[in-house]
């Protein structure tokens, strides 16, 4: 246990790298905010496109959503990051991570929203009116997806984005000590635990009497 | 007929006075509080074999709570609950086996929706009474026939009317051969046309000599079928007696108030 403490709970090592870790946390937050907003908006747009009931468009939306949801997020990120250069597209890690994570959230948002809209099932003209109602219906699972998206920002460490996990890994490499990782874990929990607790409350509210 | 308050050795089996039938359920000093609110304020009651005791009173008087304390669905705060001579509030009592002897019928039937009528009846037979499958099936069919549902044995609850569901619930309880059956507002959730089907089953049970305690608003039924009416007010038994006395010559002012407010009696 002492070995664990000196390797994982070493405050002086943690302090040495605190500024890098803070920068990493800022990057994580930036990524999370960008991705969540883009993903939600894109998902809503996709659902609205689908509601137009133009055969080919709907089919494309469904295809997109299915493919993106069937593939592991890490896989998508790696395919995009390493595969796109072969197409002549050189995007930096942040761009790739944002596009991939936003696309995933968009797919889940579209599917949830579509299920909500279909459940309310008015005519096509009503869709803008029932949009808020549909959002309220799916609030609980949607929050869960937002939390998952935020957690997945950690995957961006694999494609060279200097977010929190990546900074912790680097610090660990330099110092031979895993305490930065502990700090990073706490950082993630600070961001995510409140979200999880809010999600729990929302679930309770959403329950039928 | 005054209930006698006594301190009993918990396992002492009350010997029956030859002229009176043996007591099946005895409550002494029963109290129940929920947090700071005391719902039952010291209940003494003796129910003898073959009696049908009706408990009446306005809502909030503690009638349902009283019933639920009898099989410990609610844990009493104080007092003794003695079933066939055994104080079921003591440590070391096998509550599951005791509950076989005490049947309960609920206002909302509480049938298991994923099981047929027959399976609803056989579940406890097989798991608590340890009967074999064939034996349990035979008993279930007999019980369901007894309550008039021989042709509905393999129906699911959602294919049965409220009255039929309640009768399945009664069969479910009878299958375990209880010594006493407690009815908690058995017809309150039923449409008026269906009430009679359940009441006639209850009447049949009474005529067969089953010991019953009924909480209900069915005043006419009480007047016809009950041996004794118990009136509760704010957690206490305020007056009790046979129907002619209670309905004909009510003594306590609260009882008079209550009877005039349920003028349909």
């Amino acid at each position: 246990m002492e070995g664990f403490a000196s390797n994982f709970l070493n405050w002086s090592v943690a302090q040495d790298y605190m500024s890098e870790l803070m920068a990493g946390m800022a990057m994580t937050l930036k990524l999370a905010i960008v991705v969540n907003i883009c993903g939600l908006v894109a998902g809503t747009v996709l659902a609205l496109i689908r509601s137009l009931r133009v055969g080919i468009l709907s089919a494309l939306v469904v295809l997109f959503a299915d493919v993106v949801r069937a593939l592991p997020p890490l896989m998508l990120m790696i395919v995009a990051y390493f595969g796109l250069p072969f197409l002549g597209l050189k995007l930096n890690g942040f761009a790739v991570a944002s596009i991939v994570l936003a696309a995933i959230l968009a797919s889940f948002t579209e599917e949830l929203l579509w299920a909500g809209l279909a459940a309310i099932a008015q005519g096509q003209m009503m869709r803008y009116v029932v949009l808020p109602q549909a959002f309220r219906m799916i609030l609980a699972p949607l929050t869960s997806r937002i939390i998952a998206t935020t957690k997945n920002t950690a995957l961006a460490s694999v494609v060279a984005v200097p977010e929190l996990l990546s900074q912790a890994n680097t610090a660990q490499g330099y110092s031979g000590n895993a305490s930065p990782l502990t700090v990073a874990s706490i950082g993630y929990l600070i961001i995510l635990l409140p979200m999880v607790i809010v999600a729990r409350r929302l679930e309770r509210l959403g329950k039928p009497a | 007929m005054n209930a006698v308050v006594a301190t009993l050795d918990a396992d002492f089996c009350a010997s029956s006075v030859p002229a009176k039938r043996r007591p099946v359920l005895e409550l002494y000093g029963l109290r129940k509080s929920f947090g700071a609110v005391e719902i039952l304020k010291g209940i003494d009651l003796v129910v003898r074999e073959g009696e049908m005791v009706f408990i009446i009173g306005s809502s909030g008087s503690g009638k349902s709570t009283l019933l639920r304390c009898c099989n410990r669905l609610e844990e009493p705060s104080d007092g003794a609950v003695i079933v066939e001579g055994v104080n079921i509030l003591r440590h070391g009592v096998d509550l599951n086996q005791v509950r076989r002897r005490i049947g309960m019928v609920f206002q909302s039937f509480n049938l298991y929706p994923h099981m047929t009528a027959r399976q609803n009846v056989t579940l406890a037979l097989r798991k608590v009474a340890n009967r074999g499958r064939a034996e349990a099936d035979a008993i279930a069919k007999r019980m369901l026939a007894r309550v008039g549902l021989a042709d509905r044995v393999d129906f699911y609850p959602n294919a049965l009317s409220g009255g039929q569901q309640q009768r399945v619930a009664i069969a479910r309880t009878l299958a375990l051969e209880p010594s006493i059956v407690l009815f908690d507002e058995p017809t309150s959730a039923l449409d008026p046309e269906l009430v009679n089907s359940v009441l006639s089953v209850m009447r049949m049970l009474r005529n067969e000599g089953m010991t019953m305690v009924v909480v209900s608003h069915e005043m006419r039924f009480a007047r016809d079928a009950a041996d004794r009416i118990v009136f509760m007010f704010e957690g206490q038994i305020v007056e009790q007696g046979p129907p002619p006395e209670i309905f004909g010559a009510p003594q306590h002012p609260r009882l008079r108030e209550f009877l005039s407010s349920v003028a349909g009696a």
Partner: protein
Amino acid sequence: MNGFVDAFLNAAVLTRVWPLLLSGFGTTIILSVIVVPAGLVVGLWVALLQTVPWRPVRWSMVVYTDLFRAFPPLVLLIYVYYGLPFFGINTNALWSVVMALTLNTSAYFGEVFRAGIESIPRGQIQAARATGLSAGQTTAYVVLPQAIRNLLPDLTSNVLETIKLTSLASVVTLPELLRAARLAQGNTANATPLIAAALIYLVCLWPLVRLTSRFERRLLAARA
């Protein structure tokens, strides 16, 4: 276009790397087959322990659930992978991955089971207890059979997420499908292995995705 095919759909490269991909796929399957049932079993216990009458037990399960839903699985994985040896547990990468993923998914499955259990009306439980059934028997014969039927949609979507989660193991160099694809891609300087791996995932998981969508729609329609 030719360049595209060469880079992404190169048959020659594919035949060369196919054995590697296949072995990676096997590891992914093994991981899934271990983690999903483990997560289900632990999750069921987490849910059941939230029904006992002792508040400390219930609360510790709530803490467990919130903690492992908030902890990013990749970070947890790295933590477990590097941390276990310090507790004298010297195990290979597979079991670190199994442990980390099970902790994560059991929190999610626990919530699914809890919601299912709570959806059963209390009256039925009281009726069952009143006939003498023990708490265990009531749970086994009355509560769970109904609960499981109600939670099938959430269950399938969580199983899907868990299987996708196994790809994280590539980060701690466990030779599952994604890692095999990356290695092959590095060795051949060609993106075909990545595409091949993606297709394998697609073929296996697409049916689950369709199933989940259908369940979600049915569930929301029933509630509306």
